């Protein structure tokens, strides 16, 4: 009976084995394969960003870092003590290391310190016998040789965050520590720069340790991105702005729309966003009056001041509200309805035409021209020049600015447009707003007569034919004659380029931040005497060379005072330098 029982039990074992191995064998085979084969993603290296001459703007630098593999050392504490002698670790770092060691499996490297110097790397290698478990790893770290000078333009990369994963299903994002572009060019062209993940099929054991690689598909590294930018010019623009407290400058090609410089001062350290920012530092950046976090070239909008007279003139000429030989007598002010509008010259400019009015920035002439053209004509002409709407530059964000119209006023306030407002808008005050980029586009379009679109990435489309502007050439010539006079005999005369053949034409602008009241006027208060925050913005838009316009430039210096003394010299230096370097000649 006992024997029978044993036979029965043996039979049970056999049946169970048959069930597991034969009947369900396939299922377990599948489970076994899933068990042992793991797919590991391989990180591609991010594409570099270079300027038009191939000078690196963003590249990956090899970053040496020390890691600790806990299972290879007898005592983590003893090893850490030994490491301390070479690479001092702060108390907080020690805590993090010990926590990571405790949390992760023994074979997973724990980061000790990033960005080791050569001396430290060498010291660790030499003392390797005394540092069991310590290894040097090479990683990529994104560096920006231009530093703060191109920080807004290039943007930055940062580790993938939860919201990124929602609308981007790229598997490469799941790699620990993988960084993607978060702003600027890095974000705009992230798809090109990022590359594609490689795939390594590895056999792993139960603890997740790789035993061997079964197959490998190398990662597709990100492509090199060439910008139209001229690194030297960008540096110069930033350096010139740095003499002031806050401002932006844009240089672009009149014929192609290629941007050679797009600077905003102050910039931020490019590695600022690579790590966690302390809240005090963040608050400081956020609250700073000089708005270092804002790319003022595209995201800062300002009342364009007198530079807007270009649009006013073209609007009036286009609609035949005035003819090129139109003249107005300036007495220093004009009364419209119950308001008095002032000119720059208290005593008036006398009888002026377009050329003199531009040269001396006569407000009274443009009050007359603006009121004859009407707000909607100004609006239409402004749009043709690229104002009041996004320029279409390849950046993740830019402000559209604003050029008012009757329809806009009705929609925004419910109120009807008052004719008096047209006078303010006519000289670039009132509700009109434009970014430095838009102003640069405006002057470039006027200079070239073509509806170019600004772009940062250098591409073969640079030579494409742009549509003509909806202005008659002779009307554009009227404006250009005025702009030439500004620099030869007018407000920006002293800023004129001395080199023959390279001379510029342009328009100064001084945009009021605080309205100057009658009392101020009576007391003779000047913008220069006011607090920095209340001072006028200084603007200048210009192009060069005069004879055959090639480069356009716009400069805005926040609270800089006067356009002619502050902004024009910066534009002059940029226009001179860009002509000397002549990046457009290669295109």
């Amino acid at each position, binding site marked *: 009976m006992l024997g029978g029982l044993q036979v029965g039990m043996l039979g049970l074992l056999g049946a169970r084995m048959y069930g597991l*191995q034969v009947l369900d*064998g396939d299922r377990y085979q599948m489970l076994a394969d899933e068990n042992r084969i793991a797919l590991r993603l391989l990180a591609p290296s991010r594409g570099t960003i270079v300027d038009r001459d191939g000078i690196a703007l963003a590249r990956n630098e090899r970053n040496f870092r020390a890691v600790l593999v806990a299972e290879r050392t007898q005592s983590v504490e003893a090893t850490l003590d030994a490491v301390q002698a070479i690479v001092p670790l702060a108390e907080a770092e020690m805590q993090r290391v010990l926590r990571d060691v405790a949390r992760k499996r023994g074979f997973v490297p724990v980061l000790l310190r990033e960005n080791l110097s050569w001396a430290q790397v060498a010291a660790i290698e030499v003392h390797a016998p005394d540092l069991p478990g310590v290894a040097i790893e090479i990683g990529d770290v994104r560096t920006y040789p231009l530093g703060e000078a191109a920080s807004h333009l290039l943007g930055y990369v940062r580790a993938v965050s939860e919201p990124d994963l929602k609308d981007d299903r790229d598997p490469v994002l799941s790699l620990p520590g993988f960084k993607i572009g978060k702003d600027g060019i890095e974000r705009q062209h992230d798809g090109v720069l990022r590359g594609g993940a490689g795939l390594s099929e590895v056999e792993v054991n139960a603890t997740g340790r790789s035993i061997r690689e079964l197959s490998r598909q190398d990662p597709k590294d990100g492509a090199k991105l060439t910008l139209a930018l001229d690194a030297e010019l960008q540096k110069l623009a930033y350096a010139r702005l740095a003499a002031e407290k806050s401002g932006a400058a844009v240089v672009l090609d009149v014929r192609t729309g290629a941007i050679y410089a797009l600077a905003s001062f102050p910039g931020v350290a490019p590695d600022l966003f690579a790590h966690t920012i302390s809240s005090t530092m963040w608050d400081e950046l956020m609250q700073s009056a000089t708005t270092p976090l804002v790319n003022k070239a595209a995201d800062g909008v300002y009342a364009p001041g007198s530079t807007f007279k270009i649009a006013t003139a073209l609007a009036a000429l286009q609609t035949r509200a005035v003819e090129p030989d139109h003249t107005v007598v300036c007495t220093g002010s004009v009364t419209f309805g119950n308001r008095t509008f002032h000119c720059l010259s208290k005593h008036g400019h006398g009888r002026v035409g377009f050329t003199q009015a531009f040269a001396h920035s006569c407000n009274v002439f443009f009050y007359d021209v603006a009121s004859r053209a009407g707000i909607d004509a100004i609006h239409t002409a402004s749009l043709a020049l690229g104002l009041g709407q996004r320029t279409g530059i390849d950046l993740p964000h830019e402000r559209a600015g604003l050029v008012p119209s009757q329809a806009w006023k009705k929609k925004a306030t419910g109120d009807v447009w008052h004719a008096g407002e047209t006078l303010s808008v006519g000289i670039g005050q009132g509700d009109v707003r434009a970014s430095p980029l838009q102003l640069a586009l405006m002057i470039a379009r006027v200079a070239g007569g073509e509806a170019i679109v600004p772009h940062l990435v250098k591409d073969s489309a640079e030579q494409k034919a742009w549509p003509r502007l909806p202005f008659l050439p002779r009307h554009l010539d009227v404006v250009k004659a005025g702009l030439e006079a500004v620099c030869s005999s007018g407000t920006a005369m002293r800023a004129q380029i001395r080199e023959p053949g390279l001379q510029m034409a342009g328009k100064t602008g001084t945009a009021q931040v605080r309205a100057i009241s009658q009392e101020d006027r009576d007391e003779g208060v000047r913008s220069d005497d006011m607090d920095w925050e209340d001072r006028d913005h200084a603007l200048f838009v210009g192009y060069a060379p005069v004879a055959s316009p090639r480069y356009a430039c716009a400069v805005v210096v926040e609270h800089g005072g006067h356009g002619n003394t502050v902004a024009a010299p910066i534009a002059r230096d940029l226009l001179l330098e860009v002509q000397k370097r002549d990046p457009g000649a290669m295109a």
Partner: protein
Amino acid sequence: MSWISASSRTSHAFGTPELSLSAKVWQISRLFVMLVVALGAVGVLGQYSAANGHMEPWASRHALRFGICFVAMIGIALIDVRFLARMAYPVYFANLLLLAGVEAYGKIGGLGAQRWINLGFVQLQPSELMKIALVLGLARWFHDATLEDVRRPTYLLAPLAMILLPVGLVLAQPNLGTGLMLLMVGGAIFFLVGVRLWKFATLILLGVGAVPLVWRFMKDYQKRRVTTFLDPSTDPLGAGYHITQSKIALGSGGLWGKGYLLGSQSHLNFLPEKQTDFIFTLLCEEWGFWGGTALLTLFAMVVAYGIFVGLRSRNQFGRILALGLSVNLFLYVFINTAMVMGLIPVVGVPLPLISFGGTSMMAVMMGFGLILSVLVHRDSRMRNGEI
């Protein structure tokens, strides 16, 4: 079920033929020895594979131990079965003391659970040896028993104590598997000597009644083992991990296996304890259904031979000893293989001669030696109560 008792009554002391040493050696079954060597060889192969195709750290030591134990087995086979009977109680009690010793040492040393005694040259696991010692002790006790004796419940109290005492000590270690094995071996011997089934029923009922009490004294990990056995899928990465991984490894072996040294699950450490308790899984993964079946058949043949030896013995002690040891071996194999297949909870019972472990091999080989001794001295006659 009464054939042992019945035959014991007809055994007479006509004096026993003394055998010369060479004659004794000649009496050792070559078939049995071959089966044992085959199992040992499978063990070495298994250990070699468990170390990913290396002799170190297990296979070489396994082979060495097998060699030493093989010599010991032959030595024990030559010891007169009557001497063995005389030594039965001393061996049993010595072992009981050892067992109590580890318990006390563990308590005094404050080291918690203790299963080992370090004798310097070898670490002894008294609970493994107890499996042999218990059979010896019970065989000695029932050697004297008549059917009338067995029917008296009071007569059974002493052997019951002989079983429960070590079981209690082993469970306290805590070692669930060995405790259950001792209980079952004891029960099987009770059954062999003719204890009525209703008495078993009573004991089992008592035992079932004691389950809640036992449950209270069980350590958490033991409770978890039982609960996860009931539903292993609830905790695939926790306590049910062993069973799940073992089933995957075993099942993926299929009909013919993945080939020797090619078992991915075992070699990649998905399989826990692959050189000890889960060695059968490793072999089944690599050799498939047929390989596993062949190994089980090998064990079945050894067990069957042990039963055959028991039935051939002319003395009660030898019969009970051989049969008890066969049952013991069967339980080893059954519990281990049923465990790795997920039929019963994970309990720490090694697969005889295949699993890595010195004491377990020592105990099993000693058991084989005893079976051979019973075979060699099968015609030795011992009157009831006379040794």
